[in-house]
């Protein structure tokens, strides 16, 4: 059961379809793991339905119904519900991006930490996976933009608490933290960022060289 959730701003933008695709990948992944947020989402979807229902109708040309009926004529078969099972430990939301499991991805090494970028199709947010061995920490850093994180495997802790599988974390310019994987197992996180992080302390010499690569 997830303990850390996206706030209603994220959930509302997501329900409305106004949240960027990269951020939506993170919120969607959390929601898949969180019955509470799913229930909240249904309410927010219901609000969308009322707003759509209350719009003044716009006349639709007669031809449109015919052309819809024609395309139905060509393909009467009802589509089956989503069938394919994702690889072990991979959420449904990421199954197209990680069809053969985490180990099959092309990981880049930064010391003991591994990362890989996921091509979700977003101009602003870089979506990637970060993989920490048990007990490994990411150097203390702040944020130049927004950072959304969802834990996919294992757990990490920082000054905000312990984040376990399914938990959602959000950081922006105001927060500094030093995420550390728990000792019992490796930790894999999904992240979306719209600006590079800013390291503090010794590693700050790296800051001018950090960039992001939305894909």
């Amino acid at each position: 059961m997830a303990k850390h959730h996206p706030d209603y701003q994220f959930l509302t933008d997501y329900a409305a379809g106004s949240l960027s695709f990269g951020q939506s990948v993170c919120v969607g992944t959390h929601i898949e793991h969180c019955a509470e947020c799913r229930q909240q989402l249904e309410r927010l979807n219901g609000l969308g339905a009322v707003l759509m229902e209350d719009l003044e109708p716009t006349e639709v040309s007669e031809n449109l119904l015919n052309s819809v009926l024609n395309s139905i004529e060509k393909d009467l078969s009802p589509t089956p519900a989503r069938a394919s099972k994702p690889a072990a430990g991979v959420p449904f939301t990421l199954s197209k991006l990680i069809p053969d499991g985490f180990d099959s991805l092309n990981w880049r090494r930064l010391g003991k930490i591994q990362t890989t970028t996921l091509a979700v199709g977003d101009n602003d947010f870089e979506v990637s996976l970060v993989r920490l061995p048990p007990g490994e920490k990411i150097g203390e850093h702040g944020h130049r933009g927004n950072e959304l994180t969802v834990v996919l495997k294992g757990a990490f802790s920082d000054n905000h608490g312990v984040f376990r599988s399914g938990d959602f974390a959000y950081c922006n310019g105001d927060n500094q933290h030093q995420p550390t994987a728990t000792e019992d197992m490796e930790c894999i996180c999904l992240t979306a960022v719209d600006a590079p992080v800013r390291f503090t302390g010794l590693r700050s010499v790296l800051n001018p060289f950090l960039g992001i690569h939305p894909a």
Partner: protein
Amino acid sequence: MEAKDTSTPDWAEHLAAIAFHQDREAFARLFKHYAPKLKSYALSTATSGVSLAQFSDELVQEVMVKVWQRAVQFDSSKAGATTWIFTIARNTRIDLLRRQNRHSNHMDADDVWLEAHDGDPDTEFQQKRTHQVVREAVSQLPVEQSQVIAKVYLEGKSHSEVAEELGLPLGTVKSRVRLAMGKMKVLLEQ
């Protein structure tokens, strides 16, 4: 259009008739009710450099084809008919806009906005009551709140984009949305 009272026809039953009897007349009635709403929804989209007239016809067409094809998947115990159709319209709009911006990679909105599955949905009674409360409250919201809600849901702008457009701090936009959600009783008890 004679039936002004939209609560009279049971659209969930129409969807069942389409799913199990491929009932074209039920589909035509459903189309007459929803297509003009879907078109208005599409026209309210804030876009740059997109011809909205063509975009709105495309959206209506794609959504209504999906409604036919997916009627079998509709489960009235999980969502109301209009909510279900809204989620299809929302996802279709996202995909059409992404295609316009040449983001036609293999990820679709349906991958990221999963349909309601298992979990613990509100009962049908709760759903109907929620809808009624929302419907009554929405018309009584102060303009500054309803404007922000409409920008997020209908124009498709995020909280941050709304804040930027209106020249307001993000916190002000958030609190307007929060107040509106409270009045509409949309937020679950924390």
